[in-house]
């Protein structure tokens, strides 16, 4: 409910009362569950984005396919939660501390997922650098899509052409890929 309203009227333009009316709850009942509008935003973000991405299996050998699956899951999470993503970024840009904090946490979470994969094959500092490169590149691709396509960004996130573009660029940041090699060759040349 809250999500629909935030998406339609913006975070600032939505009152707790309006959310309560939509959900069939009194102001009092709503405040019992969430002390502020911010807490509602916090809860929405937390339960969707982080959970949707899922945990990368730790300690399993790193594969190109595994990494790209993680990337696809992130794109899907972004597409599914298009209005939250937009609200979050808008709030963060406007200097909303909670939104900035949540955004930073989400980015840190992605990096951690990538780093865990790289750590199966690389020393920790190199793994962190590769994870940073991968998630920064991902951020560049997705935010640019957000800016260039506005409301249509979720549709673009799901399009096969965009996924192929993301995968191709991601491969350039992987420590074991040379152009023209397929995934299996990549992994072999890395373990060699």
């Amino acid at each position: 409910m809250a999500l629909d309203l935030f998406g339609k009227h913006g975070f600032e333009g939505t009152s707790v009362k309006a959310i309560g009316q939509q959900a069939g709850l009194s102001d009092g009942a709503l405040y019992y569950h969430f002390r502020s509008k911010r807490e509602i935003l916090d809860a929405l973000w937390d339960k969707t984005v982080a959970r949707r991405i899922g945990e990368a299996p730790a300690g399993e050998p790193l594969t190109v396919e595994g990494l790209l699956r993680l990337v696809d899951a992130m794109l899907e999470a972004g597409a599914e939660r298009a209005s939250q993503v937009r609200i979050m970024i808008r709030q963060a840009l406007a200097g909303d501390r909670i939104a900035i904090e949540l955004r930073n946490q989400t980015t840190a979470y992605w990096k951690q997922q990538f780093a865990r994969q790289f750590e199966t094959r690389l020393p920790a500092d190199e793994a962190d650098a590769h994870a940073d490169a991968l998630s920064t590149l991902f951020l560049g691709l997705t935010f640019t899509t957000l800016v260039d396509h506005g409301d249509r960004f979720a549709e673009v996130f799901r399009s096969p052409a965009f996924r192929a573009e993301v995968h191709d660029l991601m491969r350039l940041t992987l420590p074991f890929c040379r152009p023209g090699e397929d995934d299996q060759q990549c992994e072999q040349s890395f373990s060699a």
Partner: protein
Amino acid sequence: MVQQARTTWSERGRESTRLRILDAARELFARDGVDTTSVRSIAERCGLTDAAIYYYYPAKADILDALLVVPGMGSLRPSEDGTASRAAFLNRLVDFFCSWAENADLLRLLLAGGLEGSPATMAFSTGIKGSVEAQIDPVVRKLFGGEFPQLPHAICMLLCGLMYDTLLACGDDFAAVVEQPVFRRRVFTLLDLVLPQDPL
């Protein structure tokens, strides 16, 4: 000689008028958004007439274009004697990126405009990326051969990601953060990972 001196003087005058227009526009665009800012309000801000503004910039979009010129990209071209090296290219990319910090307010605006679906900012964003990639492309070809057709795009997207990440994470402190050595090191490390290694 006199004629020449006069020309130089009036060119300087034009240049300073341009700067006045751009300063006023930068301020208003960042405060009110590109779509809401009128040429008239820019004119009022810098004490010129509408007509004077249109003489320098035929359309509002031209002002936006002029504001977001890509700094320092000329220096990315390999030198005539072909001494361009991976290390030099890498350092120039870092310099180029860090000089973008001046545009933090406008980039924030660009992101906000894109989120609102503003056609002006969307078109601009597409244009600027094309121009950055077109300038990186010949250097990449020269340094790494034709094996990496996606590399200019990857570099551009990586830099965009760094820009947006820093903008969102640091907000108003953006300019100060970008000046710190630790930030420079991060930019360097990330670009270093994406650029192919020199053949041994």
